């Protein structure tokens, strides 16, 4: 028995089917970005309770300058936010504190001399290393420069004095212009 197939006809039908199949795509959902850090705020609080806040926002010119006095301790608190949806701002700092072992905040200074130590209520990792979410800064001489704030993910070591020393991946690297006066 031989099955009779008209090749041209069949081909034609198949092509027609393929070409005219309704191929409208559904409107894609907007992706909810889950771990974007859009904003970093750093609050500097002096003993007299006066405070200055530096805010780095994605897609914006960030030009504020922080003025610090020499030999004066400042309570410095850093916060990481996801403001991609203004109606639903997520505070990522909490996540950083919870996963203290996988995170490290590190400050590096250019042309200014500032030292910092862990502050009150700072998060500590399982080996009691400070994460530096809260820190105390003291500037030793006058000058103009900037501080570079890093958030390091999965550092290879938790105690170092240079960015390279920590290893890991840089999640945040922003510069804060600083003027130090007497």
């Amino acid at each position, binding site marked *: 028995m031989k099955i009779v*197939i008209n*090749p041209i006809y*069949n*081909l034609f039908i*198949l*092509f027609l089917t*393929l*070409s005219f*199949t309704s*191929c409208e*795509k559904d*409107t*894609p*959902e*907007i*992706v*909810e*970005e*889950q*771990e974007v*850090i*859009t904003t*970093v705020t750093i609050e500097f609080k002096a003993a007299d309770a006066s405070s200055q806040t530096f805010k*780095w926002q*994605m*897609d914006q010119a960030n030009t504020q300058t922080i003025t610090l006095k020499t030999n004066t301790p400042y309570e410095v608190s850093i916060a990481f936010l996801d403001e*991609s949806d203004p109606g639903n701002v997520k505070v*990522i700092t909490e*996540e950083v504190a919870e*996963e203290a072992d*996988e995170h490290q905040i590190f400050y*590096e*200074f*250019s*042309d200014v*001399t500032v030292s910092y130590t862990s502050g009150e209520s700072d998060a500590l990792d399982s080996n009691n290393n400070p994460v530096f979410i809260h820190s105390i800064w003291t500037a030793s001489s006058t000058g103009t420069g900037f501080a*570079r704030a890093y958030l*390091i*993910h*999965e550092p*290879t070591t938790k105690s170092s004095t240079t*960015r*390279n020393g920590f*290893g*890991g*991946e*840089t*999640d*945040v*690297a*922003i510069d804060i212009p600083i003027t130090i006066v007497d």
Partner: protein
Amino acid sequence: MKRSVFRLLIFVVVITLKGSPILYGQSCNYSLKGNILDLHDQSPIFGALITIEGTTFFSQTDEFGTYNFENLCPGTYLFLIEHPQCDSLKRKITIRQNQVLNFKLEHHINELEEITVSDSKLEQITNSAQEARLNADQILEYSSKSLADALNTLSGVSVLRTGNSIAKPLIHGMYGSRVGIVSNGMRLRDQEWGADHAPNIDLNAFETIQVVKGAAALKYGGDTPGGIIVLAPAKKVLKDSLYGNTVLNMETNGRGGSISSRWVKTFKSGFYYSGQLTAKRFGDFQAPNYNLTNTGLQEGNLSFKLGSNRIVEGWEFNYSRFSNEVGILRAAHIGNIQDLATALASNIPLRVNPFTYDINAPKQQGTHQNIQISYFSTTKNQAKWKWEYSYQINQRKEFDVRRGTRSELAAIDLKLQTHALSGNYTWKKFENWKYEWGINSLLQDNFSNPNTGVKRLIPDHLKIELGSYILGVYKPNNMFSWDWGLRLDGVLIDALKYYDERDWIERGYADEFELFEIQDMGTQLLTNPKFNFLNIAGQTGVVFGFGKGFESNVSYILSQRAPNASELFSDGLHHSLATIEYGNLRLQKETIHKLLLGVSKTSDSFQTTISPYVSKAKNYIFIVPRGLEQTIRGAFPFWQYDATNALFFGIDLNADLDLSPELNFNWSASYTYAQDLEANLPLISIPPFNSTQKIKYTSNSKKWDLEIAHQRVSKQLRFPDNNFKFNTIKMGTIVPETVDISTPPESFNKLDMIFSLYLKRSKILKSYLKVMIKNITNNDYRDYLNRFRYYAAENGRNIQLQLNFIY
């Protein structure tokens, strides 16, 4: 007189019974046997089919060209002798006794046919264009490796790597969408656009792999100026048989191995089924001096086929599934350019952990499934119809190192579904002319899962392609042939993509592509980019034989390619390269002219091929650094797809010399030059000059052989300077630092060895053991074509034991 009346009677009966020769009451116990031989050299023709018209009787020749019919009734029959590579023969034969009859067939290469394999004879896909191929033994050797690794042994084919396990074939300096992969007669539709997307295919399922350099294989598409890689399964024979092979690999580097097994069951009726399974598992690979953390891989593939091939008519159902999980070098996951600079400054990867089989983020998971049906039928006048339909589902997931438990959640999750339908018709006109006409259509749907929590790299889109081609070959004699082909393709791309409203305006799309805007969602803008492309491709070439083994071919190829989804829409951060990549909606189709020349000389003990080529590209799409973008991770270089005019030329060389019956020497080399003619700069990722020399000793008894191969890859001196500077803080002050991502690594030498020992070589079972040592000297080197050369060296020494059973 009496006899002739009888004969006439038989004839009449035969006619009335419409050819049914079974005459009841007669003794039907005659036999007819003989050999089918090549008209020219009297060599036996294997696989020829002899049918008796109007009956169910048929026989197929074995490897000695022998056919056999039993239980024939006396009478006159019309015998039809056919072979895919021969002109058919019809003979009227009267049977009245047991007979021996030999037939001679005009044996020729069937240029337009799909590749078929008959023992050592391979058909060419194209006539005049350059082809290189790997046979079953060579494929087996690379059983535990990737397709690109296997092809790397061919001159003119290099490998673009991302780490150890992700490898893409690079032909004449081109890869990705410019290189097509054809398996079972259909183009593989995986996410081929990505430099770090290895082809989702298991080479163990195939018997031959052929590389056509340039877009000369027009039946598979006109958009692959680099070339086409055609993978073909074993040809089925028409006899009751069970055959296959099993290969087992154990390797020291990666402390893993693979097993792959294949079985084919064929029946005299033409019916066949086959199955194939492959499993691979490796832990972390090792560079000479350290562990390459998180580079393990696992892979599991299966396929099965069911079909019937009766030479004149056949069908096939094919299902295959490929799935793998590949770890990405942990040290290659970086946050910003300062991290990249640190990695570049270090001689060893910045994260080296002890060996493990675990695969953690960053990693890739790929699954590719193909369901395919095909049918062919030969018409009376030797013309042939073939239709194929395939449905391919490709799923690709990429996992990044993320905060919290999100590393478990894919950062890229793509599903690409492709329906493809093709039909072709081949026919002959006058003795020397052959034609093929065909039509291909494709409907492709890409879905990007929004639940990744990461902006889509590639948007949801539909792609529709409709193409038609016509090919012809004129071959008046064995010394000359002329072939040509023309192809026309329409490509429609219909995407739905969210653009950052600010980006949309910044790039000037708001004015130029206002029509694409659909809905304003606040900070995001939903757009519907739609593009149509009409592409032309053409090819023509001639082959001259000068006698004494001299042959020369010239071919010209025109190809046009529509930009792919990545080139148009790409939008995202590459963690391993610390770059942001942007697509470009303004891209036009790319046009490439290529001229290839080949000169070869073949004698009994010597064979050489010299193949230079030149190609000129208009609107050549490539990615270029466009500046630094300030992000919360610091300044990032951003790269954008753009087009330029480019010039390529190069040469592939090959020589093979039998120094004595035991000793064989083989040399191959290739050089590629590629220049961006607008910027007057070299193009990136072009293979440097490389050469491989092999010497092989085969023992007198042919029981064992030993091959030593030396590969030398020069330093690439032609590269674009894509270095950039960033400000780093050193000793309390800011210092500008250059990140050198451009300078290629030094040249290197690599020594490999293969020892093969035949354990058993009988008709039913062939078994051999191979000991392969790669990088014998444990040389610590980096490869310019490995995108992870910034982070780690290539693999160190590997000792591989391979056990083969062919049955």
